[in-house]
């Protein structure tokens, strides 16, 4: 799975815990870095996305991702510190949402439920 967050400490602890739980985890410090990873062929089962970030924030990343059919179907879990307004939620249209700060069980359950979720067929609209 791909974790996108600008907070180094968050990346470190999430990596250690998910890695320890048997997940294969790749880290990106902002939207642009994540885009580069995906362009280079990375195909994670789930993306965990922070919203407020320098260099391509959560919204920019989502717009970019949805515009690419080969990436649009990857489920995205949005992790945010401030509650999202209705408009912001509509713009992001995430597959799952996680309020910061979260404990490991909540994170693991959210990630696993997205992995276990049946994928939409390739012809379906993402």
């Amino acid at each position, binding site marked *: 799975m791909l974790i996108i967050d600008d907070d180094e400490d*968050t990346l470190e*602890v999430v990596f250690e*815990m998910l890695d320890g739980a048997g997940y294969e985890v790749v880290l990106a410090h902002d939207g642009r870095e994540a885009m580069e990873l995906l362009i280079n062929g990375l195909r994670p089962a789930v993306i965990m996305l922070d919203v*407020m970030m320098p260099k391509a924030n959560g919204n920019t990343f989502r717009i970019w991702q949805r515009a690419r059919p080969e990436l649009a179907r990857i489920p995205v879990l949005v992790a945010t510190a*401030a*509650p999202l*307004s209705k408009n912001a939620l509509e713009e992001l249209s995430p597959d799952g949402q996680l309020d*910061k700060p979260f404990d490991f069980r909540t994170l693991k359950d959210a990630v696993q439920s997205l992995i276990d979720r049946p994928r939409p067929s390739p012809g379906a609209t993402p």
Partner: protein
Amino acid sequence: MIEARKAVAVNERTCRRMTIAAVVVTVAAFLAASWGALSRLEEIRYDSRAIRTNALPSIQSLSAARRKLGTIGVMIAQLDRVPLMPEALVELRSAIASLEADVNAYFALPRYPGEREEWSSVRACIDGLHAALDGLDPSSVVTPSPEVQARLAVAIDRADAALLATMDRNAAEIQSFVQNIVSTRASALRRALLFNGIGVLLAALLLLMALRSLRRQVAAERRAQHLLEIRATELEAFAGRVAHDLVAPLTPTVLWLERLRSSPDETTRNIAVRASRGVGRVTELVDALFAFARAAREAHETTTSDLDQVAREVVSGFEELAATSHVSLTLESPGPVPLAIHPGIVASVLGNLVQNAMRYLGESPIRRVTVRLQQRNGCARVEVVDTGPGVPLALQERIFDPYFRAAGRDQPLGLGLGLATARRLVEAQGGTIGVTSFGAGSTFWFELPTPAA
């Protein structure tokens, strides 16, 4: 923002003043026109009365006197041919007496300046006639001497001339009164038109100014509303930024503490548990801060909601907490209660009150929180009744102030923004909020206006 509000208030005052001034000016102009017309009418009434009661009766009496003088003149003119019989003398005297009566009727009327001389002249002529006739013997047929005849003729000519002059004077007076009436009427008409014209023009001008002021007020209100919305959006964005910067670093803290909580060392575990509690409080405080900031924005969103449905959702959201805190949480509702308010606002207020009630139940042996909905005349009332320790009277006023928290070691930690947020939301919707508490237990309530049916 304050300037925009001041502008709205100033425009409101100006508009009200202009309208009042327009009304005052119109009424004043109407009164002035009416007063002018009335005073002129009084002048006309005086003139016409003078004509009716003095000048016209004078001319009538003088005219009758002249006719009689003419008859007397004919009788005297015959004296040089026909001797004067005693009966004819009586007739002549009686004719003169009748003439004198007409002249006296004229004398009884008010005099005009200069009339006194004409009166004296008429009087002298009549006295002359009497004197000439007094010398004649009334018991025999007489032929007056040419001298007497001449005196009589002169007296009659003079009397006629005096009567004519007096009639002319009275006719001239009538003419002057009539001219006065005509000019007074014209001047009254001019004044009435002038005052009414001025009144109408001033009123129109003031109304125009009031209209412009009203337009300015509408624009100022729009500006104020716009500023308010911008400010609310900015506040929300700022709070979001603050929340992000405060909460984001907590994520690794929470996760690392979680790791420490499963440490084999008990002391480490205990420290981790306490530290986690601290982090939990910080999260709660930031959430409250964010909700308080967002309350300003939500207050400007309008839509409809059903109080009953919102209350059911809120109560169901607290069911898990109620179960773990051993609280009996119930809802008493009369059924659907429509509101013209965003459901998020109602949920936020009610959620705050329920959370507050559960948090401050303390160690009360009876642990019950009841949410009661009522619909009254034009408003919906929500009561959150708890069996907690109650709110002392002295604190009831201040409990809704921002950052106010009940003192005491046993009180749970909070930022003191929950009830302030609730009040901010309720008052922005034209509602009221309060608490009633006598000893044990308290009832937090709020009332919101319901839309007209």
